[in-house]
């Protein structure tokens, strides 16, 4: 903070801490001691500053090994999520796996069934992609408009750089047979999470990742090996991957029938609803935050689409009467978190603010009302409605039950 201009967030923190006294002058500087102390010595692996407090929020669960923890989107800057704050969703806890003992088998309808060590996999040519990953159940509370803040209502989404091997390369090694049309992926967690993936999509874009954000992925993200299906609901990105079986039919796993299927008002459920459609949310100002004063602010948030690039994001500050185009942070990568920004003056008037994303397919993020008109309120998964926050005259920001 000594050098350069303080960020908006730092200003807010200072504003909250010292209120108006900042303007009263800085006679004795608490930031300087003379003579100055030496800093900490160099270390092997960095921790964040003790002053930084952003953490995931975990929803109460009767069994602590199942459940979700949510990325603190309101504290995020830029588009990358630190591995340590990546959202989590587990069904039977996080296994501890020694990579020297881990194996991936590729079997079923292949000419050359394979058992691969992590060393084998790391020997193959690698690919790296920046991608958004979103839980199919992210924002499920929004069907009832219950989300008080952006972390709890939108935080099952994160962005990472993933590195690994193209699945097509491994399937070429194993020799997929012409009759094969599905891949059954299984993980090594206690419940052996299993999903059916159409082979055509897997060949086109799936990868087996071992790296996340420049290092080995975290155990909670699937260490040592995870299936990554770009743009698809998080659950299909099977963690701790140890088996790929090629078949001529989907296996109707519990987590694609009982769960992760979308029940419609007519009693029919949509199955294999893989894609995450375009979505966006304002992260500042958002529910639970307070604007400390009138004046000019940078309104900002995140947009993403499982079907490609974000084409544009529009923002309203008057409850949807008019929309203006926000600036987008470059580069805009396909299926990746994209930050949008808009200068906005808060003059003490109540304001209803929201964003809507439009992706490169031309798809427009729908309103909550349109979504409910099409799907009712019992489908749990794939909520991507426009999120309104209410900024009150006193600067407080709350969820809108609209």
């Amino acid at each position, binding site marked *: 903070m000594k050098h350069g201009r303080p960020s908006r967030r730092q200003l807010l923190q200072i504003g909250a801490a010292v209120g108006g006294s900042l303007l009263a002058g800085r006679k004795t500087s608490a930031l300087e001691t003379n003579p100055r102390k030496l800093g900490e010595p160099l270390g092997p692996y960095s921790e964040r500053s003790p002053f930084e407090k952003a953490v995931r929020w975990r929803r109460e669960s*009767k*069994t602590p090994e199942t459940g979700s923890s949510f990325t603190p989107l309101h504290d995020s800057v830029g588009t990358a999520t630190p591995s340590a704050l990546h959202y989590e969703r587990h*069904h*039977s806890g996080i296994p501890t796996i020694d990579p020297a003992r881990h*194996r991936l*088998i590729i*079997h079923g309808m292949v000419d*050359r*069934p*394979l*058992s*691969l060590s992590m060393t*084998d996999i790391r*020997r*193959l040519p690698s690919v790296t992609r920046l991608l958004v990953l979103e839980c199919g159940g992210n924002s499920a509370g929004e069907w009832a408009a219950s989300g008080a803040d952006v972390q709890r209502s939108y935080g099952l989404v994160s962005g990472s750089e993933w590195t690994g091997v193209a699945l097509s*390369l491994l399937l*070429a*090694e194993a020799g997929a047979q012409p009759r094969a049309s599905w891949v*059954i992926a*299984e993980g090594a967690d*206690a*419940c*052996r999470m*299993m999903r059916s993936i159409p082979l055509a999509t897997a060949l086109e874009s799936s990868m087996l990742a071992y790296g996340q954000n420049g290092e080995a992925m975290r155990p909670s993200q699937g260490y040592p090996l995870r299936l990554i299906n770009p743009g698809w609901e998080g659950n299909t990105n099977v963690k701790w991957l*140890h*088996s790929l*079986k090629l*078949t001529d*039919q989907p*296996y*109707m*796993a*519990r987590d694609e*029938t*009982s769960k992760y*299927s979308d*029940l419609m*008002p007519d*009693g*029919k*459920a*949509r*199955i*294999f*609803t*893989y*894609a995450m*459609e375009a979505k966006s949310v304002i992260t500042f100002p958002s529910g639970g935050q307070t604007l400390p004063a009138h004046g000019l602010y940078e309104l900002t948030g995140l947009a993403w689409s499982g079907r490609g690039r974000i084409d544009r994001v529009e923002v309203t500050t008057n409850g*949807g*009467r008019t*929309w203006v185009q926000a600036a987008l942070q470059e580069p805009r990568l396909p299926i990746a978190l994209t930050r949008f920004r808009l200068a906005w003056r808060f003059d003490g008037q109540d304001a209803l603010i929201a964003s809507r994303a439009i992706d490169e397919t031309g*798809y*427009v993020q*729908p309103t909550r009302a*349109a*979504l409910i*008109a*099409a*799907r009712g309120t*019992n489908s749990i998964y794939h909520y991507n409605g426009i999120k309104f926050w209410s900024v009150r005259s006193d600067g407080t920001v709350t969820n809108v039950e609209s």
Partner: protein
Amino acid sequence: MWKVSAILLLMAVTLSAQPPGYQVGRPPTPEEVRDLGSAIAPDGTGLPEGSGTVAAGRELFAAQCARCHGPNGEGDVGARLIGGQGTLATPRPIKTVGSFWPYATTLWDYINRAMPFDRPGLLQPLEVYAAVAYVLNLNGIIEADQVMDATSLPKVKMPNRDGFVADPRPDVPRERRPR
């Protein structure tokens, strides 16, 4: 043009005829296939030998499942496993094995891979068949004297077998955009 296609064709032929490029790994052992790839298909592919009765399942359920799912599968720490038939199209749908699951093979597969929650992998195939038989009987899907095995289980017709449809998205009509 013709030349390019001919070369491409030649490349494709050599690619498929030749052994793969990197030659990593080795064939999996039978144990690896058994331990890592135990998935069961809806047509019953992968179901092991053995069978289980409703009576055996009742005992097993009381010993291994009831503490989390309730004595009659009514739900507690673990999910509710019974009832809900006829509720899917109502404002308060109750999704259970009996009301919602399209395939009985999924029940075998899931109990085998994931239950009991705190000790998955504990059950022998005979016990899984028994647990499946009992849960199906609790839901009125099979009679008390029916035996579940690799032949009979895939034939069980679940009440919601035809309750699933393909993904129609994008499905939300685009609204008129106020400007």
